[in-house]
């Protein structure tokens, strides 16, 4: 009895041992079999997958922290054909909610697919979260209906469903201010997916900085092999020197004046002469970067995206500021130097006349600037001589890129003695801004030197970069001292006096400003165009402590061709609003406060 009981134990133990041994040997056989490597390879494919992590594109702020460019959540809708059972419902629902084509969607999701491998088809992109919420609600309702039907034993029926539909969240670029400052900000072509990049303005100039570094990581599906995805820092954020409210004001006032003057286009540039910071840069036309694909509609042909940096023009009499600055600095003339204006001067054998073809008699240099006498300024340039004149223009940066940190800047070289196409008369015409072309940013940078006591500052829009939680400030840079402090202050005083003497409409009550009008003929294919001018005005103030330089340009105004009639009032209105937005008290109050 006892031995029989033990035999049973031995039998069970032996059987179990043999079974274990068999399993062990079989496992070794599987591992060593020729197919094992193939299976390991197939398994490896499902173990991990590579994923490219695109960092969030950096934000763009104005100087006070108002967001000019950010990101919003959006969705891509697709379908995994392995699970699609009701193409009709999917196509009808997506068509009604997102507006995509029913037939196309139906064709895409009806594609036969018998494999177990995933087959993803993209159906819609950049769908707003609100529409996804609607889709979720419909899907939930359909699933509930199906569950109820299932309980009523209708398992074999294909109930309406959205099985297989997937929506994946992602970020897209958004511009909360729409067209405001779009010429400065530029746009990001987010629809181009992996090829997306910034175009124009700071979006293009600082594309690499804003984009950050896309990183490829390996994502494990095996829960034992999951590792923390490395922290991918977002792209750097940019703080611009632009003041959103001043930009909005400049655009509003510019648009009103374009409308009232019938001008073809307009530009306003507001610069801090002490730092070179661009406070505002308003142009027409402006694109809403949220709809950047309308680019060719807004800018047909070869129109510049930002005329303030991308279009050169003959500026006319505003250029006399530079001519007079050069002559004063070189000692060729003094403010009291007298000139007898006979109404005509011969330079290089060509007669140069005044804007009104009149003779203004005896004048000093302030009178020449006040009455904007071409004859006088041509004489000043000849007194200075071509070598010094063009050397000063070079030092003022005319003919060179200013290097402003905006994409799309252009420049037109200045013809100098010795160049093909330069004649002696050029010296005379260049003196009053004809036959020489510059962009508004070149003009405002050069004239900014006069406002800033002779120091020319690098114009820039980047105030700071915020990267990895740290702020890197962009300090102001002096790019030259084309004239002395004394020359700059003398000329400022002359131009302030000349505005006051002629009771210019550019004057702003309570604030002493210096400035100069400009009316220029427009070169065409066969000489200058008839009845078409460019009207400009440049001014700065307050004269004792300049805080702003404002440059305005109206292209081909219809109500009057003269800068003093159409551009000067635009300058005045801009400055009247500017002093409010800059918290700049009238001179008397400011000086009283300073004296305490």
């Amino acid at each position, binding site marked *: 009895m006892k031995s029989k009981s033990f035999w049973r134990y031995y039998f069970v133990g032996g059987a179990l041992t043999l079974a274990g041994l068999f399993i062990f040997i079989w496992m070794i056989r599987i591992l060593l079999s020729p197919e094992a490597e193939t299976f390991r390879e197939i398994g490896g494919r499902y173990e991990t997958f590579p994923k490219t992590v695109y960092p*969030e594109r950096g*934000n763009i*702020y104005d*100087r*006070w*922290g*108002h*967001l000019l460019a*950010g*990101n*919003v*959540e959006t969705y891509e809708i697709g379908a995994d054909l392995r699970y699609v059972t009701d193409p009709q419902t999917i196509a009808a629902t997506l068509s009604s909610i997102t507006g995509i084509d029913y037939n196309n969607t139906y064709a895409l999701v009806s594609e036969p697919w018998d494999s177990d491998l995933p087959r993803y088809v993209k159906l819609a992109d950049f769908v707003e*979260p609100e529409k996804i919420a609607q889709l979720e609600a419909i899907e939930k309702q359909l699933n509930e209906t199906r569950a109820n039907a299932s309980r009523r034993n209708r398992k074999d029926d294909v109930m309406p469903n959205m099985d297989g539909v997937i929506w994946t*969240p*992602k*970020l897209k670029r*958004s511009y*909360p*201010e*729409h067209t*405001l400052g779009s010429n400065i900000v530029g746009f990001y072509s987010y629809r181009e997916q992996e090829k997306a990049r910034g175009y124009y303005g700071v979006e293009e100039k600082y594309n690499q900085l804003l984009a950050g570094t896309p990183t490829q990581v390996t994502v*494990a599906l*095996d*829960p*034992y*092999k*999951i*590792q*923390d*995805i490395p922290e991918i820092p977002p792209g750097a954020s940019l*703080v611009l020197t632009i003041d*959103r*409210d001043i*930009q*909005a004001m400049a655009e509003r006032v510019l648009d009103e004046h374009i409308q009232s003057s019938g001008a073809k286009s307009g530009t306003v540039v507001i610069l801090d002469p002490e730092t070179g910071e661009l406070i505002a840069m308003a142009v027409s036309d402006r694109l809403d970067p949220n709809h950047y694909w309308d680019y060719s509609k807004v800018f047909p042909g070869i129109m510049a995206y930002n005329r303030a940096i991308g279009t050169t023009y003959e500026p006319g009499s505003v250029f006399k500021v530079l001519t007079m600055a050069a002559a004063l600095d070189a000692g060729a003339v003094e403010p009291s130097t007298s000139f007898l204006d006979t109404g005509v001067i011969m330079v290089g054998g060509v007669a140069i006349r005044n804007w009104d073809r009149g003779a203004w008699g005896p004048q000093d240099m302030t009178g020449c600037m006040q009455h904007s006498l071409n004859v006088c300024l041509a004489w000043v340039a000849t007194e200075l001589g071509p070598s010094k004149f063009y050397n000063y223009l070079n030092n003022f940066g005319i003919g060179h890129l200013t290097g402003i940190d905006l994409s799309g800047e252009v420049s037109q070289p200045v013809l100098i003695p010795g160049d093909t196409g330069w004649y002696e008369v050029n010296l005379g015409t260049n003196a009053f801004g004809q036959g020489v072309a510059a962009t508004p940013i070149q003009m405002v940078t050069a004239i900014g030197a006069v406002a800033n006591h002779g120091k020319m500052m690098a114009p820039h829009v980047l105030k*700071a970069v*915020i990267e990895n*939680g*740290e*702020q*890197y*400030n962009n300090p102001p840079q002096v790019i030259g001292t084309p004239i002395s402090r004394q020359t700059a202050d003398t000329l400022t005083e002359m131009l302030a006096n000349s505005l006051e003497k002629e009771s210019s409409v550019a004057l702003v*009550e*309570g604030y002493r400003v210096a400035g100069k009008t400009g009316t220029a003929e427009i070169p065409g294919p066969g000489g200058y165009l008839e009845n078409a001018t460019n009207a400009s005005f440049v001014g700065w103030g307050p004269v004792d402590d300049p805080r702003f330089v404002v440059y305005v340009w109206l292209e081909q105004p219809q109500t009057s061709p003269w800068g003093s009639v159409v551009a000067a009032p635009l300058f005045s209105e801009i400055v*009247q*609003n500017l*002093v*409010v937005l800059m*918290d700049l*008290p*009238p001179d008397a*109050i400011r000086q009283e*406060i300073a004296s*305490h």
Partner: protein
Amino acid sequence: MTAHQRINQAYRQAPWRKATQIGVLFLIIAVLGASILWIMLTVTVQAASAGLQIQDLEARQEELQRSIASMRTDIAINTSASAMEARAKELGFHRATKDEIDYMVIPGYTGRQPQISAPPPTASVSPVLIKPSYTQSLSEWLLQGILKMNEQAGGLAP
């Protein structure tokens, strides 16, 4: 052989005692095996659970980052220049002109300050959160200990 010795021998040779010894031995092996299996299973389950938790948290982190970005932009849309101007007009405000403004001296007021200010870059060293003893191997720990002892001995020398 005394009676006491006989009882003692009988007790030692009792078959139930041998069976008990074998049974206890098997029981110990079984308990040990079960314990090892239990520990392995627990650790494995915890590792898998932690892995899935990491995956969930990463997804949640991405979701929150998108949500924050969206909200920031939504705020900007609702406070854009045009939106604020329209709201101000609805409330009966109008643009101030320079004649409507009174300027006054406020001691200590330094003017409008920028809203965004991140700290300037520093050359700070990232703080060490994990003690070296958690990351060192045994050999490294021993080597460092010996070096430390040597340094101390050197320091004490005249």
